[in-house]
């Protein structure tokens, strides 16, 4: 399957399971709402003063300084609460990813119960995937700090213009981001293999994820960057529109709110699109078709050959089952 076709297939599957989109959005809203009230209370402190006039049409840093100084402790407490909440949200995301991948790999319509059953089934496995991924990315950053950055710094000292210096720094950051993105992609396939192939060993699932990418580097990377490109395009469009909304009147404020929520929905859509299109690519590449996931773990009978595919097509994957 071509990357483009995988993306299309993935998109159609999201439409099929669009209720996941709604659930994920609601969870996002629910979490964000936790801090809205204290944030609003904080903002209202400046709204009781004349300094608030400096924030009606823009954001005046001079005025914000006084606000920041007076409420530094509140800002810090809010920041800490946001980090804690973010950590919880990450755990919830890890929980939900099991349900998402299982649903997107499934042909039938999803129910809330089945979604959360799958989410619970894969939670601990995906948590371990996360730990492995964190170790890999941490190692990547450590390696960059230990070897790459010193080299980049030494090159920056040799170049005679800050333009070249900027290119070196930007190049370093770009490479780290690129590699980190590819690591994320590999672990996406590890999660997909964990679900589709009912793997319990996270370590081997990760290796299999890597093997899948290494065997099909063009298709997997192209697909990944097509999704990433869409995400960036969406972000750019959002910024362009948002910058034109001053939100100084109620209609404009409503317009801003709607735009922001569309953007959040779009981001969730893109998260699903990454998984959905990668699941489609994986299923096509492995020439397997997945039947609805059973309520209890099932062995290799759950995977059957697609009609017309040669028997040997999956013969190289016996260990991938169970």
């Amino acid at each position, binding site marked *: 399957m071509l990357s483009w076709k995988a993306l299309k297939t993935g998109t159609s599957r999201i439409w099929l399971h669009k209720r996941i989109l709604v659930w994920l959005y609601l969870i*996002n809203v629910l*979490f*964000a709402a936790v*801090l*809205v009230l204290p*944030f*609003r209370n904080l*903002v209202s*402190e*400046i*709204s*009781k*003063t*004349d*300094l*608030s*006039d400096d*924030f*009606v049409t823009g*954001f*005046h*840093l*001079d005025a914000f*300084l*006084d606000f920041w*100084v*007076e409420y530094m402790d509140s800002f810090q407490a809010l920041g800490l609460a*946001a980090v804690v*909440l*973010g950590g919880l*949200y*990450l*755990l*919830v*995301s890890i929980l939900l*990813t099991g349900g998402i991948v299982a649903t997107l790999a499934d042909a039938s319509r999803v129910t809330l119960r089945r979604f959360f059953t799958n989410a619970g089934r894969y939670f601990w496995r995906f948590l371990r995937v*996360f730990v492995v991924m*964190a170790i890999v*990315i941490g190692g990547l950053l450590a390696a960059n700090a230990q070897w790459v950055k010193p080299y980049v710094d030494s090159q*920056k*000292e*040799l170049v*005679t*213009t*800050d*333009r070249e210096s*900027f290119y070196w720094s930007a190049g370093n950051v770009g490479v780290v981001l690129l590699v980190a993105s590819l690591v*994320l992609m590999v672990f996406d396939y590890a999660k997909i293999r964990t679900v589709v192939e009912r793997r319990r060993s996270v370590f081997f699932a990760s290796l299999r994820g890597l093997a899948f990418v290494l065997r099909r580097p063009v298709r997997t990377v192209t697909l990944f960057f097509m999704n990433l490109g869409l995400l960036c395009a969406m972000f750019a469009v959002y910024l362009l529109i948002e*910058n034109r909304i*001053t*939100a*100084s009147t*109620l209609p404009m*404020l409503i317009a*801003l*709110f709607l735009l*922001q929520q569309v*953007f*959040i929905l779009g981001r969730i859509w893109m*998260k699903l699109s990454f998984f959905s299109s990668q699941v489609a690519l994986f299923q096509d590449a492995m020439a397997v078709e997945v039947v609805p996931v059973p309520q209890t773990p099932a062995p290799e009978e759950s995977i059957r050959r697609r009609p017309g595919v040669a028997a040997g097509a999956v013969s190289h994957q016996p260990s991938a089952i169970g």
Partner: protein
Amino acid sequence: MHVIKGSRPSASPTCLMLPWILVFAPATAQNTMFEEPLSERVANYDIDVTLNDEAKRLHGTVYLNWNNPSDDRVGELFFHLYTNAFRNVKSTFVREGIIDRADWETGEPPSENPWRKDNGWGGMNVTKMTVNGQDVTERIVFAQPDDNNTDDRSVIYVPLSTAIAPRATARIEITYEMQIPQCKVRMGWWQDDFFMMAHWFPKIGVYEPPGMRLVPADAPSGRWNCHQFHAGTEFYSNFGEYNVRITLPEKYIVGTTGLIVEESLNGDGTKTLVAHAEDVHEFAWVADAQFLEVRDIWRSKTTQRTVDIRLLYQPGHELAADKYIDATQRSLDYVENWLGAGAYPYPNVTVVDPRSGSGAGGMEYPTLFTGGAFWWMDRLFGEGSRITEMVTIHEFMHQIWYGVVASNEFEEAWLDEGLTSYSDFRFGQAFYGERTSWVNWWGLTASGLLSARASYTTSRSRSDGAIADPSFSHWRSGIGYKMSYLKSNLMLMTLEHLLGRERFDNIMRTYYQRWKFRHPTRQDFVDVANEVAGENLDWFFDQLIEQTCSLDYAVAAIVNVPIDELDEGILTDALTLPPKVEDEGDEDGDDSDEGDEEAEGEEIHKSTVVFRRAGDMIFPMETLVEFSDGEILRDTWDGRDRVRKVTFTRKGKVVRAAIDPEHHVPLDINRLNNSLRIEENDTVTNKYTVKGFFWMQSLLQFFSLPG
């Protein structure tokens, strides 16, 4: 500081003029900037140096004519060897500013701090010195007048066998070698072919006769003022004339203080430049093999006098080049209008865009200053960021408050930095908008006020020192910066508001005209202010310069009580913090629909506004009270009492109260408490609630990435 007093007169020694005549006569004879000297010209230098760029060494000879400005017999000389600040980690400069004090005191081995590496150090060595023909080399000793750090070699002391007679000229010849340090701060080499040459020659200290600056007029004799090189503070020197001959490889493009009057190739791959400057108190030069150059001319709109602007900039900084030139042109215009025709007296100015990473940016020398530009920033923000312009304006204005009005920056840095910071704030607002002089990008705005207030108002140590404290003595803790740059700048902004712009400008103009090409003290500034303002402002300057006061006024409470329900206890409660609003009408359940508002409008309230002085500085403040019927009452409070209660009994109620409602007093460390409204600005609350909700959603999305 350590003070060495002068002695009584003796005979003048023989002159040895031959080296001067041989080396500099052709150049100086043809080049005279000013018909009459603008300054006293105490220290006049002819310098001949050769740069070995591969070895990073400079060697040469200084021929100094030093005119004894006093009626004393001066029996010793003091010189700055500033380069020795970069000699090793033991210098006062490095100890104060770079090396962590804990490391230094525990004697831990060198850390990753680049200052602790063995490479890149420099230093200056005087190989021979004669004074009026007498060899005094053996008499040279290092002196540490400020901190007794015997490892510091940034000052030398030379006792003379024959004292210099009153008003006589001493001819001093110094042969020296200099290992140029790697440029980390202000001066040195960078990337093999960039040289920022400041503090590159032995420089005589300032002999202050009785009556000059802080030396009492009735003192028996004058004294030397020659501080060590410190981490934060800058310099102090006599004015004079400079003729400088520099020999260096042909590939370098060179900018200097003053004018380059001659340039010739030597046929051996080197070239020699001769530069000439008059009525300056420092001489710096810069050489870079990759400089690009732009020239422009500024013409006075009133006198038609011109100033040549020469910009030396880095490849890739074409956008910044336009900013440099534009900001310099605007500054020349503004300063002429502000301080008088010819306020910038020199015929040229050289603007230097130094190498990225060299640490040479943002520094001023007479008729030459270094700026700061970032390739990526100009491309990303364009004119949305004015960093390059504001640095240019700031360094240009040092030409006035450091270059022409030459205070002692070791001791009273604020007379330069404070006045310069005030100037760049004011110029920036005039050039780029009152609220947008620093940043105007995608709805984000910031003015120069932000940079002035940010570090001062947020600092818990803002009252740990006074502006009057010697700047070098508390620079390390950061207080010196806050006092010299920030508090003094805010003080001047506040003074402008207090007196009005016209009177304030008269003060600045008079101060400039009276003290140009001289060395004023803070008392001289205060005296000018009192004289020109026509009132005694000591109460203002005492609190801000001599004492550690901080200014904070607040609206503590608004209390509206229907006249028939008055309870005086509410007013007592209102004096507590945080600011509070008591609205009995609301507590009674009166919703603010139109009908109720109308009814309230007819109801008689006893309304009390409580203003509070939260800081220890006393300053008259404007107050404003707004009523529900739209009427606004303005008043001025002398600010002396800790609390001021203002009570009104009338129809309607107070809906808003403010102190310094137009934010004319930037010294106020907390402007958030300067106003209070009984109803929130819903537009802002809703807008940022919506935005905050979205930011939270986005943050959560970000957190979920690895999930």
